């Protein structure tokens, strides 16, 4: 899948969770991605991160790092 589209979608998710009360944004974003993104989409965004993660907002980058840890 297009990295550009996945980055845009992930950043959209990030923009919702960052201002929420009492949540670790990276954890909340990662949970949302685990619950709603099919494994190949998660694999694709992890692969994008491994190539430098261009365009990922910081909390989203942290969330994708957690997805990467899931796969370890």
């Amino acid at each position: 899948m297009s990295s550009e589209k996945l980055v845009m979608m992930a950043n959209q998710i990030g923009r919702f969770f960052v201002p929420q009360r009492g949540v670790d944004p990276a954890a909340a974003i990662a949970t949302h991605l685990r619950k709603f993104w099919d494994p190949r989409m998660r694999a694709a965004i992890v692969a994008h991160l491994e190539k430098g993660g261009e365009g990922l907002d910081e909390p989203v980058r942290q969330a994708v790092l957690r997805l990467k840890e899931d796969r370890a």
Partner: protein
Amino acid sequence: MSLVPEIDFGTPASRATEQVALTIDGQTVTVPAGTSIMRAAMDAGIQVPKLCATDSVEAFGSCRLCLVEISGRAGTPASCTTPVAADMVVSTQTEKLKKIRKGVMELYISDHPLDCLTCAANGDCGLQDMAGAVGLREVRYGYEGESHTKQEKDESNPYFTFDPAKCIVCSRCVRACEEVQGTFALTIQGRGFDSKVSPGASSDDFLSSECVSCGACVQACPTATLSEKSLIEIGQPEHSVVTTCGYCGVGCSFKAEMRGEELVRMVPWKEGKANRGHSCVKGRFAWGYAHHRERVLKPMIRDSIDQPWREVSWDEAIGRVASEFRRLQEKHGRLAIGGITSSRCTNEETYVMQKLIRGGFGNNNVDTCARVCHSPTGFGLSQAFGTSAGTQDFDSVEQSDVILVIGANPTDAHPVFASRLKKRLRQGARLIVIDPRRIDLVRMPHVEADYHLPLRPGTNAAVMNALAYTIVTEGLANERFVREFCDRDAFEYWAAFVSEPQNSPEAVGLMAGVDPETIRGAARLYATGGNAAIYYGLGVTEHSQGTTTVMAIANLAMVTGNLGRPGVGVNPLRGQNNVQGACDMGSFPHELTGYRHISDDATREMFEKMWGRSLDAEPGLRIPNMFDAAIEGTFKGLYVQGEDILQSDPNTAHVVQALSAMECVVVQDLFLNETANYAHVFLPGSSFLEKDGTFTNAERRINRVRRVMTPRSGMADWEITLAIARAMGFEMLYRHPSEIMDEIAALTPTFAGVSYDLLDRVGSVQWPCNGKAPLGTPVMHVGGFARGKGNFLITEYVPTDERTGPRFPLLLTTGRILSQYNVGAQTRRTGNVVWHDQDLLEIHPHDAEQRGVRDGDWVKLDSRTGSTSLRARITDRVAPGVVYTTFHHPETQANVVTTEFSDWATNCPEYKVTAVQVSPSNGPGDWQKEYAEQARHSRRVAAE
């Protein structure tokens, strides 16, 4: 079989709680205060003769046939307009009354054509019945009176005729149009003997008038004056079956009146709890598609989309599906195939479809068309309240004092509910409309919104925050409700957020194009006007912040305490008949039935045990993700049931590319729809008239759908899915859809009490229906939220990435109109095309003038995604800078121009905001011509 009996009590029921006892013809009768004598008599089984009275409209007292005598009172009052009184003694049959009634009937009959044997109402005529009831044996005035037979019939409406010769001027049609439908299209023109029913001005006929063809007048007519054309052609029905409409999410109950297996007419069922005896033009009349000549009745296959279709046996078609899907999984992996369930199919059909995918395909690549409409509702409301559904029943609107409609156009998309809403507004409820267009509700006969917020498309979340700002900063919050039922910390955090300056009406109004004082006024009215209810539609959900706005709506209801009782609540108006049910039935890739996540081990194990299959714990692909995966090359096979994704999903070129990239597309539908142009197997589906099952409407009401005719293709839709499962080695053993529902109930706590037996006994129930609520739950969250405490979420406004600019300076928003439904596959194949035979582009006069566009001109609509051409309609219903069209016609393909931007949480497409340019055009564009040719080529069927 026989006709389902319905008793006409003559006048509406009284809602008084005080009971009154009286005597009628020697019987003691006890009824609520305010009940008419006519109704009280009928309660006791005494039928007082009547012509102008019927219980769907208020008493009128004009026919003078229902007269009674009351001890101690002078005269012979009309029983329809005279309320009961304690200890009243009434006689309905005396020598005096008999004489008067005969005299009245003589006058009626002297002026009526006596062609009963050839009359369409023969056997079902109120006048005929009353002549019999009063013992009419002669007409002293003769039969040569003015019978108006030379007056021309009005046959302009495609579905019913108006024959003035048969009219007795009882005004039932006029009153039904006013009181039931709320359109006020009919009137009585002239006086005395010249009185006649007239649609609109004298130059109007029914078609050119404001009549919306709801059928209420036809239903109310006691003679053959207003008759369905199908009844005139076929004759009186001999049996009827109660079933549920297959169109919008209101879920109206109808009696399908039959002669053998031929449908004579659909008549709204008075006992239907969603529609209370009313209907709209679609459900009442637009069912002819079931027998349209383009209906495909045999399975077909082809090796590639360039080839013509080849009709084959069911065995060969099913075998092809199974072998292709297995081949694709062997070659490309388990996750390479999936399916899309339909919101037009029953709960049972949807359930077995997702079961096939999860248990038979071995993955969770199942999604539903709710993805592209109300998926944000499910997620948003579950986060706020704990339940993925609306909070009320439709009856609730009768107790509302303030009604806020946002992003919905009920008079077009949910017309039967709209009639109930308008009735409440005529009784004095106040109205707030938040919509970029001046929809009909903003101002129409006897309805005018107190506030219309014509916001710029894409600013819903900001405007909802501005309403909340006003409520919080002006001290209008319902502290008691928040303290008792909501998470206090979440509230305080949220209250601080919405009180920030960027959420003020002044800041938001500037950006959203709405007067700040209008925002403040609307907020004050919503917060302080009494019972306040919010109704919303796809104008909320189909945005990049669809879920955020649903949460903002929930916040607004919680902060004002407008939840947990009749008259209030958060009410999503679902687009299709079974959107709610499709979501309930586990159609989303991440959820099993009852909204339980697939990763939940306990839930998954329960299903695994019942199904005898191990299930994947990972979420599957959503529809847009399926398209992307297909283009990427990892998704190769798709089973689509009852959806036309090519026409309904955004960025048509992208969908074409995705479908073209797949090796096996299976379409199960009534017609060779647009998606079928890219399919390899076509499985002929069943119309709702051929289905047995249940639909769940927008108020969570589970209604029975009953088969009134044999599936024309020979197989019911659920049987087709079972056959595919069997061919793929996954046996599902059901003898009847009721057994599927039994399994759903066994696996789903909110459906635990649901069975066909219960539905047949009580009519319908609203989930949750279980041990705690054996007869269902009309109003949710009474005395507390399903999730415990109500959760205020931060709903920060994030502008969409879709932006206007010099190349694309206008914003396009899309929607529906009354006479057409969704992609139009059904309604385009009915008489409804007389009202809407093409999609039109609404454009403001200012924008049209700038571009040299005149009303009716062809215009080219360009976006960053694509281009299409259609005719322009110049109107100030849209604001300058905004254009609007519908997506009902494949010749236009409005989704050629919409984008793949989507809701952050659910991927629901952002249909409602597309930056476009409009320019004059000579006619359909190149793409449209090429598409039409491709479609024609693709629909060829090889000769046997």
